[in-house]
């Protein structure tokens, strides 16, 4: 199983290299240099936010769930962080703790509604997202709170050309890879996503696994919210309008994780995030019309997924839901 997953992941990194090469060539023809420091910084900066969200999203999608509330959680978290810190450097740890607590609780609610309430995750998390939206619209009519300069460093500092936020994102990705490969809960996530009935029968506590995935996903969204707060210098409810959840899902699937669950991993997701970031930077450097950008983005996402979807689906998507038929397939 590991080797198969690796080969899919490898394929995605090949795709990333291809996008980088094609993008570099296109920018070069245009008379620029995609690999200049400024552009590298831009690319890496763009990976952090989607990266945080997509890492969490990968966990829930692996469990055959989905989280459409992450954009709202990130917006709320930016406000929780900024209002808790309220300009005082001493409050930074408290702010971080508050965000992780709030976002973790929302994740637990998502997970509980999905697991115990048997509500389809699409509806459950869309509903939770709407509840948060109503709260934000009522409570915060605009930016609020004040992020101390020390915490703004999280959004602005970089070591050479690598932003700190990207490093944190990569650390989190590494933790995610380790979690999925080496912990029992991680293995259970694949099992639950592969076939929840079989997983339950083989003694996995499926509810707990799915709730854990949702808690971690929301906490990742909380970290994304803290990054927003660090970059904005304040908390912003408006951040939910950007449909970050769709970006995160696109990056996850682009990274080879199957929406039906049970297949994929964080390593691929990071590549998926990177592909989107490279595209955005290339479009920006080449000054592509913003609407053409959407067209290209949509086409490339479909094309990239199509490129490796076929074999991946052939091998994996036919879950043994109709067990006896398995032998009938070529």
């Amino acid at each position, binding site marked *: 199983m590991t080797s198969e997953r690796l080969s899919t992941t490898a394929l995605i990194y090949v795709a990333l290299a291809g996008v980088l090469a094609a993008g570099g060539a296109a920018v070069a023809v245009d008379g620029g240099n995609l690999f200049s420091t400024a552009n590298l910084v831009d690319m890496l900066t763009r990976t952090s936010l989607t990266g945080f969200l997509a890492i969490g999203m990968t966990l829930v999608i692996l469990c055959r769930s989905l989280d459409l509330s992450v954009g709202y959680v990130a917006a709320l978290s930016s406000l929780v962080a900024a209002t808790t810190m309220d300009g005082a450097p001493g409050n930074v740890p408290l702010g971080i703790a508050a965000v992780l607590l709030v976002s973790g609780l929302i994740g637990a609610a998502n997970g509980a*509604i999905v697991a115990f*309430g*048997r*509500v*389809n995750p*699409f*509806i*459950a998390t*869309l*509903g*939770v*997202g*709407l*509840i*948060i*939206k*109503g*709260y934000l*619209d*009522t409570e915060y009519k605009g930016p609020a709170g004040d992020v101390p300069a020390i915490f703004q460093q999280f959004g602005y500092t970089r070591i050479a050309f690598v932003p700190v936020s990207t490093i944190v994102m990569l650390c989190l990705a590494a933790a995610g890879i380790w979690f999925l490969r080496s912990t029992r809960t991680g293995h259970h996530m694949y099992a639950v996503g592969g076939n929840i009935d079989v997983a339950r029968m083989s003694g996995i506590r499926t509810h707990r696994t799915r709730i854990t995935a949702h808690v971690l996903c929301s906490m990742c969204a909380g970290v994304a919210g803290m990054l927003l707060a660090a970059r904005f210098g304040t908390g912003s409810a408006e951040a939910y309008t950007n449909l970050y959840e*769709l970006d995160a*899902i*696109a990056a996850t*699937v682009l990274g080879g994780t*199957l*929406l*039906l669950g049970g297949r994929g991993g964080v390593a691929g997701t990071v590549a998926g995030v990177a592909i989107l970031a490279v595209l955005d930077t290339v479009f920006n450097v080449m000054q592509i*019309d913003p*609407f*053409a*950008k*959407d*067209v*290209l*983005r*949509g*086409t490339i*996402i*479909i094309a990239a*997924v*199509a490129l490796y*979807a*076929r074999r991946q*689906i*052939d091998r994996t998507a*036919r879950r043994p*839901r*109709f067990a006896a*038929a398995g032998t*009938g*397939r070529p």
Partner: protein
Amino acid sequence: MQRARSAAAALLGGGTGTVFALLAVIFAIVFAVNPGFFQAASLMAFLKQAAPLVILAAGQYFVIVSGNFDLSVGALVGAQVVIAARLIDGEEARTVPVIGVMLLFGIAVGLVNGLVTTVLKVQSFITTLGMLLVLYGAIRLWTGGAPTGSLSESFRVPGRMGIENVPLLGQVPWALLIMIACGAAAIWLMRTRFGRVLIATGDNDLAAELSGARVDTVRTAAFVLSGLSATIAGILIGGFAGVSAQVGEGMEFTVITAVVLGGVVLGGGQGLVVAAMAGALTIEALFTLFNQLALPASLRPSVQGAIIIAAVAYAARRRMRPAGQTATPS
């Protein structure tokens, strides 16, 4: 015979009963708050503006019951309205040919969605998310960012006008008649062999394929029906309110919510098209209720989210036992 039994089972056991009960409760509260709402004129106006969502829900039902998603419908509705305005450009004579072009365009978009999903094996969530981006960008590229041109008076008739001076009812909107016609056609379609194959495909595509069903064909057809329904909805919405840049935005989430509220299971294989359409009516009734109660606008998403989750969870609870047996293929 068997069909009648399964329909009865669905009514009693699943979301179908819930959605009609919810609809009744909402109407009862509306009546308590404002008995005037049940005058013919108000009811007709309500049905007129609800018609596009109901038709969209019927289209989305085909896609969902066959095991897919169509996230592109909101963008398609918007695109169709803009296409109509630009091509008609105020000239009456162009109305009918342009409607023809729109129908072809809707079918083409559905066909592309269907073929990319079935032939290229891209998961429908990604296919239609990509299509959403492409339509959103392409239509704005074509019109320079904001809609141009204008609709003709005759184009606006189906969405805005009706049969005048009907006894007891006053004006009967064309939109209502079109909605009834679409609903009847959808119900009829689901009773044909196509409908049965569609449900079987959503329930277990492998089993359906083994028993000789052309799984890819019916799934593609479902997307085409969704594209068609978005076109009709576009004609009605454009007729109802004219052109604006935001037409259709976010409708994909509303309509999927409506279909699920109707007890149709995401992932396919379960649910009735009547209930999906009732789900759409329920959503519209809910918005009306919010308005009648003068609920603060910023709070409405929260209430909406909570009600949706509660309704779907309630339906899932009731479905639990009977649905346990559906895994057995017939």
